[in-house]
């Protein structure tokens, strides 16, 4: 019952935007470009979707009487870990084995994971590809978050995009060949149609019950991102950015496809969880198949070292003796992660995200900070049970590199949106790091909080840009807080949140007053610290994020100071800028509230509990490496708990120092920034050039591609064209002779025939004198001649 209710509610929330998209794109709004109907429609769709998601969350909680939230359930997972459990029981974390409950005072958690099949796409014998749904706490939280933020951003966009409400719009950023500006009709309805389509895709991705379905919507959100980045098609930069994003995502998706192939080959299914197919038998999902022992390691065949795939209810061998080579499991994980790298703009595929800022600011807020780029992180979290240690380590390092690099670049960026873009990349790196170091809850926790405050900050920047008439360069701003106080205030909230500042309470860190960012980043740092403690060789995984925490605080405050504090640097701009209308500031306030307080209570707070309510079983107690083996050890919760205080303190110190530095450099006039910039010009240039990534890619891929292409072109020109031209010449030669033959012989014959006929007719023409009497004479003579011949030839 609950399952059906949840499924229906979420499906409504999922499909409403699609309906909205259809109506908006085909509803003939091009006829009335001044109407806001399309916008209200999409806002209505996504708003209803938000309500549905929220109610679904509540229904889910009531269905298991909110046992997720209370502390016992949290402890129970601890208790569970103390017990030796048969592996097959652990295979399905959503169905606690009865004996565990017999042996323990009952804290009954109802069924919390619902998975099933919506529609069968195709069947291949016993195998099938279908549209499934997989609903657990994470799904519900994501749904609520996405729909809420999307609603806010839709409202904001209604104000921000209002200039599109015209028949004749002059795009000052797009130039024609003759130097004039592009004149085009407004595309208000199209923008909201794309937003609705994106919402549909994103929610479908979250709801997806199997990895293939995820891939489908993965590509759909890619398309939406393409469309929205390239919304100003007339601008060359926008087009390039759209292409860049799309292509780089394809690079990642290539790995994704490889992973899918491996999984399909060995597991024969894409489903995450158990489903009951139409014949009524229970089909195990991937999570059930990949069995883990009590230590959390995957079960391996002693002889071959292959990984056993247990609990197989589909496929040729129901006995469950099928195996998959460990290396291929790693490959599958890495492949899927490659997709996430592309989507989440991780190193080395991060360069598309800053360029994606060419799109309208609401798009940047919704797609390129809050939801789509987070989809990669979400997928890693969703697919967590399938990752083995090596994969996780890769994830951790990738995230580590990404977060540091992006932060450093963000220091020197002057475009307000670029700064936010690099911070986004950096924060995504944090999430990946957290997931990589076995901080499942931490990474996703940071994902949620980051979604709130980053979308908040993007909207603020959008408000600033809107107020400053599309001026994005921070050096021209300054002192804007007098002109746009609401924006400034909400922006400050976001900055504090992302910087992770907090006011330590008198008694311990457990009772700090802080905004959401602090808690989530704290969790990540703590996890990494715990990880480093277990694996000293990977100490960078703790140092780098710690430093980067300071850098983050530095560049975020730099941004705030640059923009709002101090004296106006461009008086003209200052004079003309203004506060945004309520329809834009309203969402800012709402978001700022959540950015501030969504994570209240930290890891004991409701949000974290909700997220981790259905976390994979083997996470809670970590995975201890076998003695002597070179394998890494993954920390459990209590290990993390132990180092929490330390990590939090260190992170807070780093953030505070970064903040102070920013204040010194940009809040006051004590230090001359330009001077420092000149002294560190080399480093500065390096950073401004984004670590020369674009150049590097240019050198590594584009140039070689060009070289190869030129080679191919040369071969094409010389060899193939040569062959073709030669054959053509031969043909011409032959046809010349053929022409001669034609003219001489064939035409000659035909003309001869025609001419002779003509001449004959000419000669006969003489006979046709038009004289009646001569004709009669001819007849008579003819008859006479005939008879004469007759007589002579037939005598008698």
């Amino acid at each position, binding site marked *: 019952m609950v399952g059906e209710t949840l499924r229906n509610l979420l499906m409504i929330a999922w499909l409403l935007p699609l309906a909205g998209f259809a109506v908006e794109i085909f509803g003939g709004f091009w006829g009335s470009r001044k109407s806001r109907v399309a916008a209200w429609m999409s806002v209505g769709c996504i708003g209803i979707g938000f309500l549905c998601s929220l109610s679904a969350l509540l229904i889910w909680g009531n269905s298991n009487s909110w046992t997720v939230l209370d502390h016992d359930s949290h402890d129970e997972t601890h208790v569970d870990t103390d017990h030796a459990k048969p592996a097959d029981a652990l295979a399905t974390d959503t169905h606690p084995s009865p004996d565990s409950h017999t042996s323990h005072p009952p804290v009954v958690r109802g069924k919390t994971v619902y998975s099933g099949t919506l529609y069968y796409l195709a069947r291949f014998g016993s195998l099938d590809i279908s549209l499934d749904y997989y609903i657990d706490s994470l799904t519900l939280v994501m749904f609520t978050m996405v729909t809420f933020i999307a609603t806010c951003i839709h409202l904001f966009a209604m104000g921000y995009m209002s200039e599109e409400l015209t028949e004749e719009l002059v795009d000052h950023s797009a130039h024609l060949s003759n130097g004039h500006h592009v004149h085009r009709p407004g595309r208000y309805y199209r923008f909201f149609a794309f937003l609705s389509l994106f919402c549909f895709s994103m929610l479908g991705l979250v709801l997806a019950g199997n990895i293939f379905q995820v891939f489908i919507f993965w590509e759909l959100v890619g398309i939406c991102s393409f469309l929205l980045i390239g919304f100003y098609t007339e601008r060359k930069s926008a087009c390039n950015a759209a292409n860049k994003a799309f292509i780089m995502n394809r690079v990642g998706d290539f790995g994704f496809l490889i992973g899918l192939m491996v999984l399909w080959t060995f597991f024969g299914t894409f489903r995450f969880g158990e489903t009951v197919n139409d014949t009524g038998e229970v089909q195990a999902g991937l999570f059930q198949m990949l069995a883990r022992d009590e230590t959390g390691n995957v079960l391996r065949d002693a002889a071959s070292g292959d990984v056993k795939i247990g609990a197989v209810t589909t496929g040729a061998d129901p006995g469950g003796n099928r195996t998959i080579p460990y290396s291929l499991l790693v490959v599958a994980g890495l492949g899927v992660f490659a997709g996430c790298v592309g989507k989440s703009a991780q190193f080395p595929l991060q360069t598309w995200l800053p360029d994606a800022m060419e799109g309208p600011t609401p798009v940047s807020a919704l797609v390129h900070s809050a939801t789509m780029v987070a989809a990669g992180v979400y997928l890693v979290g969703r697919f967590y049970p399938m990752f083995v240690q090596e994969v996780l380590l890769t994830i951790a390092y990738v995230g580590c590199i990404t977060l540091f690099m992006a932060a450093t670049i963000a220091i020197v960026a002057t475009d307000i949106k670029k700064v936010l873009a690099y911070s986004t990349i950096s924060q995504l790196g944090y999430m990946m790091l957290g997931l990589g170091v076995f901080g499942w809850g931490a990474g996703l926790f940071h994902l949620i909080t980051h979604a709130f405050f980053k979308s908040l900050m993007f909207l603020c920047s959008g408000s600033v840009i809107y107020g400053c008439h599309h001026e994005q360069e921070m050096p021209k701003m300054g002192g804007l807080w007098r002109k746009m106080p609401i924006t400034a205030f909400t922006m400050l909230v976001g900055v504090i949140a992302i910087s992770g500042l907090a006011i330590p309470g008198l008694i311990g860190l457990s009772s700090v007053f802080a905004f959401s960012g602090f808690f989530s980043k704290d969790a990540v740092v703590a996890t990494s610290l715990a990880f480093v403690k277990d694996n000293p060789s990977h100490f960078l995984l703790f140092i780098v994020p710690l430093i980067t925490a300071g850098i983050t605080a530095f560049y975020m405050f730099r941004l705030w100071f640059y923009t709002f504090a101090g004296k106006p640097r461009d008086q003209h701009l200052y004079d003309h800028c203004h506060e945004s209308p309520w329809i834009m500031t309203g969402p800012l306030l709402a978001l700022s509230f959540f950015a501030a307080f969504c994570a209240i209570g930290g890891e004991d707070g409701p949000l974290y509990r909700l997220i981790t309510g259905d976390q994979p079983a083997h996470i809670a107690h970590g995975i201890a490496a076998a003695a002597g083996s070179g394998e890494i050890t993954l920390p459990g919760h209590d290990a993390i708990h132990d180092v929490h205080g330390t990590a939090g303190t260190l992170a807070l110190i780093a953030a505070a120092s970064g903040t102070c530095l920013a204040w010194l450099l940009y809040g006051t006039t004590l230090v001359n920034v330009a001077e420092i910039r000149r002294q560190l010009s080399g480093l500065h240039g390096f950073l401004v050039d984004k670590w020369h990534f674009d150049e590097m890619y240019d050198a590594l891929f584009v140039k070689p591609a060009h070289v190869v292409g030129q080679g191919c072109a040369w071969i094409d020109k010389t060899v193939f064209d040569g062959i073709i031209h030669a054959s053509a010449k031969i043909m011409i030669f032959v046809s010349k002779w053929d022409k001669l033959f034609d003219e001489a012989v064939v035409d000659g014959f035909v003309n001869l025939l025609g001419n002779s006929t003509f001449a004959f007719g000419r000669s006969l023409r003489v006979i*046709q004198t038009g*004289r009646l*009497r001569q004709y*009669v004479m001819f007849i*008579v003579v003819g008859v006479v001649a005939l008879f004469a011949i007759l007589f002579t030839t037939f005598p008698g």
Partner: protein
Amino acid sequence: MTGRRIGLIQNSKFLLVRSSMTADLNSYLFVGAVLFVCGVVCMATKRNGIGVLMGVELVLNGANVNFVAFSRYTDLGLDGQVFSLFVIVLAAAEAAVALAIALNFYNNHLTIDVDRANKLKG
């Protein structure tokens, strides 16, 4: 056919002058032939359109003579007479139309000389 014998030797008898002109079939046919030939020559030599018309009438009369002769001397019987009647009637019709045409021609060319009617000259 069996009765049909064409040959110069056998034909040579028409060359010598017939002693007496008895009213038998061949004499009629000879008269018809003369009429026919005269008509043809008339058509061939007369420049006056109406003269040509008269030639046609002569030709038709030659045919009539033959018909009547056959009806008289062979078992063609009455059919010959009937045919010649038809010929006469249709000849009258033809004469009427031809005369109308001649009048038209005269109206247009102010002459009846058929040699002037050479618009179809090749």
